[in-house]
């Protein structure tokens, strides 16, 4: 082999390697970019939290999670009406209510029943005689298997709580996990997105949130904890407080009817919340919200007044976690 030929082969190999590398870079450019994402060009709408909460919140003893940027997710507008119809057919129940694009119901609550809430995209399913499931007990895999089987989705969950009901069912509460590993929460009693109730090895009823969330490649910087302390007690800073009165109701307020105006008066005195632990979650309320944004969930203690005495009540507080520069003032 002469020198010219040798040189040509070497140049050819080098060129081939360079072209392959260029192709690989081009192919993976998007995913490299995705790792970080880009900040939004316009401020986002924080429309899941109230901007008229005037109660005082003390976060001086709360460790705010240290996180710089987090992904913004968009909501798919797709509804699962067809899947619901198929499920209703499997359960042999017919449509009983369909109205104003808000609500479907198949069957009645005395037997098999499916309620499909289009506003929140929630499926509430009651099966009178229960359905068998293959696992020994309900786990996060059970939730994934059910959404795969009935709705064709590949979603991950974490089961965080179980509760035994007087009627004998064990209810497993779960939160759906986003692909960045953070959980979604809803403004529910246990802040779950989904639950399954089983009894004697059968699923008796369940509730699933069926909205699909997609990573938008947009990231938002989170508010610095020092800044948060400055903002937190401004009335318009997005936040909501959900007190849990059960303990006080069963003890101190046991003689006060929970539907009475007297109890309303007590709830009005709720104030001076002191934050304890905190974590980042994504808060979902309904299909109306355009984006799914991270919020801080603060487990707190608030005070209420009754007959001149102060009592403490545990509360879950959601506060905006995004740097206010990236949140629009108007809605």
């Amino acid at each position: 082999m002469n020198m010219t030929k040798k040189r040509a082969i070497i140049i050819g190999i080098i060129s081939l390697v360079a072209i392959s590398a260029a192709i690989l870079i081009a192919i993976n450019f998007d995913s490299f970019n995705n790792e970080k994402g880009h900040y939004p060009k316009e401020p986002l709408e924080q429309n899941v939290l109230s901007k008229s909460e005037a109660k005082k919140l003390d976060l001086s003893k709360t460790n705010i999670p240290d996180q710089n940027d987090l992904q913004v997710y968009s909501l798919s507008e797709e509804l699962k009406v067809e899947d619901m119809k198929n499920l209703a057919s499997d359960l042999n129940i017919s449509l009983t209510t369909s109205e104003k694009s808000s609500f479907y119901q198949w069957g009645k609550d005395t037997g098999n029943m499916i309620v499909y809430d289009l506003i929140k995209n929630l499926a509430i399913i009651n099966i009178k005689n229960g359905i068998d499931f293959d696992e020994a007990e309900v786990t996060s895999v059970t939730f994934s298997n059910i959404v795969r089987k009935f709705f064709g989705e590949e979603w991950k969950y974490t089961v965080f709580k179980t509760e035994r009901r007087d009627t004998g069912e064990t209810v497993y509460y779960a939160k759906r996990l986003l692909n960045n590993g953070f959980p979604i929460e809803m403004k529910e009693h246990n802040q779950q997105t989904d639950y399954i109730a089983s009894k004697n090895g059968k699923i008796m009823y369940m509730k699933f949130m069926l909205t699909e969330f997609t990573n938008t490649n947009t990231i938002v910087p989170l508010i610095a904890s020092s800044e948060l302390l400055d903002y937190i007690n401004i009335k318009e800073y997005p936040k909501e407080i959900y007190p849990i009165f059960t303990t006080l109701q069963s003890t101190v307020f046991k003689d006060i009817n929970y539907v009475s105006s007297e109890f309303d008066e007590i709830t009005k005195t709720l104030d001076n919340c002191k934050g304890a632990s905190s974590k980042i979650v994504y808060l979902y309320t309904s299909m109306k919200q355009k984006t799914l944004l991270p919020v801080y969930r603060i487990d707190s203690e608030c005070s209420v007044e009754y007959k001149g005495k102060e009592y403490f009540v545990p509360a879950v507080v959601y506060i905006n976690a995004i740097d206010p520069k990236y949140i629009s003032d108007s809605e």
Partner: protein
Amino acid sequence: MPKQGKKPQYDSALGSIYDFIFAESKKTPNKVKPVKITGVDGTSEITDALVAVLENPLVFVNKSTLDAFEDVINFDLLSYRYGGGERDTVKLNLKDLKKAFSDPNGFLDKSFAKYEANRKINKAQWAGDAIQGVLAGTWARKHGLDIETVKAVSEIHRASDRFSQTANFDPTKVTSLGERNGALIDKYLNNSDPKYTLAFFIQQYGDEKVATKKFNQYKKLVEQVNSGKRNELVYDKNVYSFLEGLDITNKAIKSEQAGDKLQAENYRHAARYLESSVSDAERKANERRNKLEIQKYQAEINRLKESNDPDKKEKIKVLERNMKLISTDTNMSRMMGLAGTYGKVQGFTGSMSTLNNYFLKGNLAGSLITGEFFDPNRNRSWINPTDAGRRKTLAEAGVKGFSKYNTHGVSINFKISKPSNSRYAQEYYDNMIKVYYYSPVVMAKSLMNGELFARKAYENMNKFNNRYGQKIPGFDMAKLFDKNGNVDDSYLSQILGVSTADQAEALSKFLKSNKRWGNLAYGFSAIKRVQDKVSSFVENKIGRKLRQKVATELLKRKAFQKFSKEILNEWVLKGGVKVLGKAIGTALAGVIGPAGQIVGDIIAQIAMDVAQKVAKPVIKFSMHALLYGIVGLLGIIFLLVNKSHSVLSVHSNVAPSQVIECAGSGNTSGADDSDKTDSSGDDYDSDDTNKEESQITGTGPSVPFDGKPLPPGETCLISSPSARCSQGMYGSFSHKNTPAIDIATGGYFYAPTFCGNNNCVVTYYNATATCGDGYAGGLIKFTATYEGNVYEFKLLHIDSPYRPGDKIGSGEPVARIMTLQETGDACSTGQHLHMETRFNGAIVDPREVLNNPSSEGGFGCNISSCV
């Protein structure tokens, strides 16, 4: 509809269970049929066990079970106490009534024969003690010892008895012996006296080991008094014997210093005698010491005999007299040792006999089933796992080791395992207690006295305490509940202030379950409570008053006022001729010296004999009067039953959990239900048959709805325009004081179509509303304004996408009525919307607002009349 609390449900079950058991117990075994229980959802082992009892009566409703029932529901109809203890009491109780009716005289003769046998044993025991006291007292008097020493040696054998009689009373009120002990405590223990060093005790006791023990005992007692435990020591016999011994020893030292060696020796003997009387170890040490002294004296006598001492005869005489004294002391000590050994042998024999009965004679299984194995009076062997110690309340004992559960202001006893240092023994005791609570007889008895439920509450407390007690800062279960078993609100609030949300939730669950167990324990202890009340009434209104009269008469005498006021008080409280005799004896002792105490004791014994003889005709007369009374009462009840048999037979032959058909009641359907909780939080079942609106819908502060015309196009605000109102304003249950209606329906609640111009605003939203038992769904309040007229809506048991401050658009879905399963079944028994309305600030009937035509400010729904 809210269904807070479970009490009425338990009451029904309780009534059913009683009826069933009493009905079954009257049948012969071949007629007893199993009852099929329906609707019982086995959520706990107890429920399952109770159901098992009821489903298989032949297995469980046997003689033992019925005997156990009889024991629990047994009332003392008459009791005559001629002595100081339970054994000295003649009783006629409910259980004996049948025998008493059939053969009144024969029944009494048999009873008296039993009590007379007891008296013989008691008298023999008393005579032994008394004779020993008389001998020791005579010896002390003969040797010229002072009155306090004479009294001490005379009474030391009865000291336990005397102290124990007052131990349960106010420690500041002491009897004569207690007074003496208190004076000794104040004299020797108030401050550590530098005189009492180890060297002092070595000098007095010779033996260094014994002296060190005495010295340490002295130091410990001083510490106890300094830490404020003086009154606890007043009734301690060991403390008394130690201090009286020390006092007598000081008298010996004084005699020595005065040159009277013989008197000093006498005092030392008295001190040793006293100490030996209360402790086996002391007794043995004393005997060893005596032996050495006798050897010493014998050697001295031998030496003197061989010597040429001119006074040797006199000296030997003195030494021999001393030797005789010591020998008497030793003999007495040996007698006491023999008695102690006999007691031990007796205890061991009893224990072996118990083991033989259980293991060789094969009575173990039976005794486990009947619960007899766990009775400290029947099984005194170490294999009995129960703690027979003084019963303690939670506040006294902290969480573990208390055996009195307080709830609803009453105390319910239950069994706990006795503590052991051995891990294996402890394991055995703990597990055997579980066996006890699985005994069918115990389960059955628990239906009368609530014991099993109290025990479950105890386990529940321990479980929570083990899991969270250490984690919640400053948590103390004993502080969480007051002496009546109620939650201390201010402490709870304080604890909630330092708890995390999870801990608070766990605490909430614990309090709920504690309330449930408390309700069960209280409900099922009804019969025991009635029994206690009747006994207490009889005792307080009759027995104590009579005694009070006698005591008042006696207290007119100076001697009684001065010396035995406290004992008389005790007698008024407890009764018993024996105690009265002691009061007389103590008064005599104060007047004529220590012999008076013995005379008093003898009088007490004679009085008991007399009282026993007197008792017979008195009880015979009382019993006949009582039997006639019962017959009369039965006649009255018969008349009442004939008049109102329907009321009395409400529960008859109804198994637990079956729906009880009371007058005017019917079945309920979950979907049709509405709130059922009254303001006190109890459960009720509402019924379809209660249709009369006037009976259910009450009145309260509201005004007639005077709606103004709305624009055309307004439609019903709820998904189903034709729905049923399952509870009206100011109804009987959860709406008692509430201007709300319940609409039994699902679907959405929509905003009026006139909304959309910033005129409809959410004023409040709580997604996590709760009742005392758990989740109630969401609660939303919003206003809707049209032409200056403001509608305010309050909706509960809903789910909403809105937040406070949100503006609502025209006809938008505001809130979805949650299904029963979503709200967790805690506050409702069926899916429904709870709704309140105001119009221009005034409370108005929501049904009128919904039903009125739009021309009258309404939304044209068709909500039925409320039930």
